[in-house]
């Protein structure tokens, strides 16, 4: 897919075919990441579709999606490789029982023990292995990992290679497509950012959101899609603790469609509010604002646009 005819336009079209609608900015960022073979760092509010992009990219390119969820304290053993200790122990036992351990000596035994068959390959190492299509390595929520891990990752992402002392250097013949996401709970180190292309993902425009809902939610009427999108858009303007993202819009529309609704009314919204607002205070704020008013406003909006 990374050929000379590719352009931001064709990228956007291909992603759209996979059910992911993106604007020119994101399409250009993806296009550049593919053609320059650089990691793409996505930041943005929770629920704007950062992780989803990586999944869609994998579907499009046919590469394997390899996901590395970061958390505080993650280290190379969990992200790159580890040894299969129980099998190593079993092997030692067997070698001892057969007398092999005594005959061949400690060095030979060590070589056997640290061979590839005892290697447990984790996400990063798997992404560097030869594959028919470039795998998509999703490094999710990098801001949750510690600085040390980030520095380590920088090394991997600069040369697309990993050194395992007992085995040697593993280098990707074709670099994987790398997508990093961050929720900005802290700043990702500048050195890592410099290595990456950067894109700040925004909430989609009203029309785009309607389109996303219609594509993603089966059995949703055009009218309902517009109304739900208008309602979430209105809610984003109410200074909530957690303004609803696209993920919530989709969940909400799915819930309403499942209930057989073709248009929203106050009792339906009240009954399903928990799918879109996850804080008690937020629900209160919306209902105190006069739910009927909020709905009326949104209904008008859904007709105008």
């Amino acid at each position, binding site marked *: 897919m990374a050929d000379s005819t590719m352009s*931001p336009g064709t990228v956007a079209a291909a992603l759209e075919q996979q059910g992911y609608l993106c604007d020119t900015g994101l399409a*250009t960022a993806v296009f550049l990441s593919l053609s320059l073979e650089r990691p793409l760092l996505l930041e943005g509010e929770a629920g704007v579709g950062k992780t989803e992009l990586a999944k869609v990219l994998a579907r499009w390119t046919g590469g394997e999606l390899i996901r590395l969820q970061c958390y505080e304290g993650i280290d190379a053993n969990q992200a790159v490789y580890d040894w299969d200790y129980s099998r190593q122990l079993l092997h030692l036992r067997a070698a001892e029982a057969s007398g092999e351990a005594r005959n061949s000596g400690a060095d030979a035994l060590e070589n056997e023990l640290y061979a590839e068959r005892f290697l447990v390959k984790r996400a990063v190492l798997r992404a560097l292995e030869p594959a028919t299509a470039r795998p998509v390595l999703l490094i999710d929520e990098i801001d949750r990992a510690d600085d040390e891990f980030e520095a380590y990752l920088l090394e991997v992402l600069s040369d697309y290679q990993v050194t395992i002392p007992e085995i040697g250097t593993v280098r990707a013949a074709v670099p994987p497509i790398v997508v990093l996401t961050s*929720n900005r*709970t802290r700043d990702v180190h500048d050195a890592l950012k410099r290595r990456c292309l950067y894109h700040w993902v925004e909430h989609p425009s009203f029309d785009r959101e309607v389109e996303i809902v219609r594509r993603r939610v089966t059995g949703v009427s055009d009218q309902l899609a517009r109304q739900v999108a208008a309602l979430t858009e209105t809610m984003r303007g109410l200074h909530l603790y957690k303004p609803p993202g696209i993920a919530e819009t989709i969940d909400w529309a799915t819930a309403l469609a499942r209930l057989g609704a073709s248009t929203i009314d106050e009792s339906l919204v009240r009954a399903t509010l928990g799918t879109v607002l996850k804080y008690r205070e937020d629900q209160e704020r919306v209902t105190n604002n006069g739910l009927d008013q909020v709905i009326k406003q949104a209904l008008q909006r859904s007709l105008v646009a």
Partner: protein
Amino acid sequence: MAGTSTVTVESPAERLAVAFSRILRGAGLTTPVGSVLLFVEALGQTGIDSRESVYWAARTTLVRRPEDIPLFNRAFEAFWLGRTADGSTQITETMKLTLQLDTDDDGSDERDSAETSSDDETITLRFSAIETLKHKDFADYTPTELAEAQHMMSRLRLAGSPRTSFRHVRGRDARLDLRRTIRSSLQTGGEPIRRHHLDPDQRLRRLVLLLDVSGSMEPYSRALVRFVQAAVAGRQKVEAFAIGTRLTRVTRELSNRDPDRALKRASDRVQDWSGGTRLGDCLHQFNDEWGVRGMARGAIVVVLSDGWDRGDPEHLSEQMSRLQRVSHKLVWVNPLKVTPGYAPLARGMAAALPHVDAFVEGHSLAAMEELARVIGQP
């Protein structure tokens, strides 16, 4: 950077990239040479004819923080409008200027180190001076005393109680360290005689400092900002914000080890220094954009403010309770607390107090030592 002088500018894309990054630097955005080169590569892919392509190629390669986007947009606007009018002579000149900027950078680095070393030498304090200074009210400080206080504050240890990490280190109980055990069993013919263990590691909690820089705090914020700077430059995982009529993150600015440079940068960044206060709004913004999202989770959060607030106390109370629910410890430092007959009459203060884990003074060095102790308590 010295290598830049040998680069010969050839293609239109390179010329465009160099010219635009110069404008960005002029506008105050940092554009490392590596990013500019990446921008040139990106232009090679997108072409330089369409405004939209150039815009996005530039933004994905040169912008690294959403805060910088408005500034970037203005710079791009100016650049794109003025682009066609300029001839090639203009561009040659641009190159020269870029080179000057680069050398300037190098030069300032040298100055940096020179300054810090001379600072180290000049600050010497007599013991008696320290003692008097320790209990003196910050509001009565002379500029020299401020500088001395800065030096002393940088010695405060702001560790905070550690928390258990997911990571493990060598230890004595808990989990068996199979990796190490197997390694050493090789020496005993494959028999795991020596066993190694792992313990959970201990990690520093993040420390978040929110400094009120409004007019009413002025006598104290001069000194307290130095405390904040010492904290940011002195240990890892510290975040600093200025609150007034708006919220400004100043972690980056204050992390410079030279206090004077750090303070200068921070005051350039904070636009509402000595203005009004909208504590509730600022905390709301902090909670939404940083705190509740993750920065304040499990962290020690310190608010340095006199609690005078023009906003709705209800709002402040709500945001404080939200902040307290995610943080490990919420400390309020009020320099006015020591004033004889002080009662938390400021409406904001009264609204915030029920949600505070510790309420301490903040008017003198001795009070800051006490604050360091409170932060250190489990």
